[in-house]
C-alpha cells in the first residue's frame, strides 16, 4: 500500500519549482499517505452518495438523536470545564498550598490514561454500587453509568485538561499591577475579576473550551464503556458510525462520518481564530477589543 506513491513520484524528474529538499519530500509524501489519501477517499465516497441522499441519511431521526447527545452533552461538559478549569488554573498559578504539584500532575492524567481504562474506571465508580454511584443513587435516585449522565461525565473527564492548560500561561503572564491599580481606584474584588481579569483571560478560556468541546464530541473509548449505547437515549455519533459499519451500511456510516469531519474542520478553524485573537490581545489589548 505504502510503496505505490513514492515509486510513481520517483519516475518523474522534479520540475524546477518543485525542487524540494529531503525533509520536504518526506513531509509531503507522509502527509499524502497517512492523511490526504484517507481524507480524499472519504470525500469521494461521500460525494458518490449524492446530495439529496446525503441530506436524507445525515438527518434521519436516529442520526439527529445522536447529534443531540454528542454535540449537546459535549457542549455542557466543555462549559462546565470552562468554569472549573479557570478555578483550577487560578489555584495552580496564584495560590500556594500543599499538594499543588500533585494537582498539577493529575490534570494531565486524562491525556495519559488510555481511554478504555478511563471508561472502565468511570463506568465502575459511577455504577449503582460504585464509590460515587452508590451515594448518588441512594440520595437522589440518580443513575449515572449507562445513562446520558454517564456520557456527560466521561466527556467532562477527558476535556478537563484543555481549559486548564490553555488558561495557565495567560494567567501567569497577567500583571498583578493592573489588579492593584483597580483596587487602588476603589474597585471591589468582583469588579476587578469581571472587568480586569476575566476579559484578558477570555480568549484563552474560549480556546480551551473549544478544544475540549472538539475532543469531547469525537471521544469514543471512554464514552462507549459508560454508555448503554441505546439509540435515542445515550448513543453518540461515533458509536452510531461503528454500528452502521457493522451492519454493512457503508453509505450511512460515510455520511455521518462526513458530518463529524466537517464539524472537526470547523472547530479547528474556530480554535485557530481564537488563538490568533488571543495573541493579538496580548500584543495590543486596546485595539483588538
Amino acid at each position, binding site marked *: *500500500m505504502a510503496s*505505490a506513491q513514492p515509486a510513481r513520484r520517483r519516475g518523474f524528474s522534479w520540475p524546477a519549482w518543485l525542487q524540494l529538499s*529531503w*525533509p520536504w519530500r*518526506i513531509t509531503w509524501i*507522509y502527509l499524502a499517505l*497517512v*492523511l490526504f489519501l*484517507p481524507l480524499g*477517499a*472519504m470525500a469521494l*465516497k461521500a460525494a458518490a452518495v449524492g446530495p439529496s441522499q446525503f441530506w436524507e441519511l445525515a438527518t434521519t431521526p436516529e442520526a439527529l438523536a445522536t447529534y443531540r447527545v454528542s454535540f449537546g452533552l459535549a457542549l455542557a461538559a466543555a462549559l462546565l470545564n470552562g468554569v*472549573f478549569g479557570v*478555578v*483550577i488554573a487560578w*489555584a495552580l498559578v496564584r*495560590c500556594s*498550598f*500543599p499538594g*499543588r*504539584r500533585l*494537582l498539577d*500532575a*493529575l*490534570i*494531565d*492524567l486524562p*491525556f*495519559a*490514561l*488510555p*481511554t*478504555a*481504562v*478511563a*471508561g*472502565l*474506571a468511570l463506568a*465502575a*465508580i459511577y455504577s449503582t454500587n*460504585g*464509590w460515587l454511584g452508590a451515594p*448518588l443513587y441512594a440520595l437522589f435516585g440518580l443513575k449515572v453509568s449507562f445513562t446520558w449522565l454517564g456520557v456527560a461525565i466521561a466527556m*467532562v*473527564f477527558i476535556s478537563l485538561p484543555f481549559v486548564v492548560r490553555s488558561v495557565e500561561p495567560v494567567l501567569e503572564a497577567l500583571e498583578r499591577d493592573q489588579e492593584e491599580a483597580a483596587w487602588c481606584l476603589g474597585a471591589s*474584588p468582583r469588579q476587578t475579576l469581571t472587568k480586569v481579569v476575566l476579559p484578558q483571560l477570555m480568549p484563552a478560556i474560549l480556546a480551551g473550551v473549544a478544544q475540549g468541546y472538539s475532543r469531547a464530541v*469525537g*471521544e*469514543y*473509548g471512554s464514552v462507549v464503556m459508560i454508555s448503554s449505547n441505546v439509540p435515542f437515549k445515550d448513543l453518540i*455519533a*461515533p*458509536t452510531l*458510525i461503528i454500528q452502521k459499519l457493522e451492519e454493512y451500511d*457503508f453509505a450511512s456510516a460515510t455520511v455521518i*462520518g462526513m458530518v*463529524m469531519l466537517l464539524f*472537526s474542520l470547523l472547530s*479547528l478553524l474556530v480554535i*485557530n481564530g481564537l488563538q490568533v485573537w488571543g495573541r493579538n490581545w496580548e500584543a495590543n489589548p486596546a485595539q483588538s477589543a
Partner: protein
Amino acid sequence: MPSLLRSVAKALPRPSASALIPLIACLYVVVIILLPALEVVAGAFAKVLTPFIENLQSEELRSAVMLTLRCTLIAVPANTIFGLAAATAIARRQFPGKALLLSVIDLPFSISPVVVGLMLVLLYSPTNGLLGGIVSSLGLKIIFSWPGMALATIIVTFPFMAREVIPLLEEEGWDQEEAARTLGATNWQVFWKVTLPSVRWAVVYGLILTTARALGEFGAVAVVSGNIAGQTQTLPLFVEDAYKQYDTELAYGAALILGGVGIVSLLLKLFVEQLLGGRREEEPMT
C-alpha cells in the same frame, strides 16, 4: 454533582477566597480524575490480587499485548522520522500557507478517532474501499488485520512529535546550523550533529507522548480491527471486550497494565520537565 460540590463548599465555615479556590480546584480534580484512577487500582487489587498473575498467562491477553507493542513499534519510529523531517522543513522558514500547513498537521487531533478508522475502511476495505481492489489483488490484507491497525495508530499519533519539535526549533534560530555549514558540514551532518542535539529533549518529550497515545489508542483501531480475540485485539480493545463479557477480572488486569503504562508516561513527562527546569518558574512551596 458540581452543585453538590458548591453546596459542600458553602457549608464549610466561610474561609477566605485564597483558601476556597484551591479547595474547589482540588475537590473537582479529585472527583473527576483521581477517584476513577484509584478505582482501577483498587478494583484490580481487591478483586483479582491472586488471579491477576494467572490472568497474565491468558493466551488472548498475551497476544493483545504483543499486537499493541507491534503497532506502537511501527507507529513511533515512523512518526519520529516524519516529525523531525516536518520540523526541519517547516520551522524557521516563512512561506505562504505555513499556518495552514501547521493546521493540517494538527488535523488528527480534532478528527474523531472513529472517523479516522472509517476513512481507512473506505480506502482499503476489500469490498467497499477505494483502493480495495488493488490491495486485494496484491494479496495484502489491511482492514481487519494488523497493517490497518498500525496505520490507524500512525494517523492518530503523528502530530505529537512535530508539535513538540517545531516551537523549539523556531526559538533556536539558524546561527549554529549556518556556522556548521560554513565549516563545511553536509546537510546530513548538520542535522545529525547540530539540529538534533539542540532539540533532543523535545524529541524525548514527543516520544513519550506518541508512545503513550499509541499504546492506548482505542477508537481508530477498534474500527479497522474487526476485534477478533487472540488475533486483532489490542490491549485497549481487550479491556472493553472482557468488560462487556462480564469477565471483570481480566478487564481490570489488562486495565491495570495499560493504566500503569499511562502513569509511567506521565511520570517520565514530569521528570523531563523537571530536568528542563520546569515549564514555568515554580514558586518554592512553603
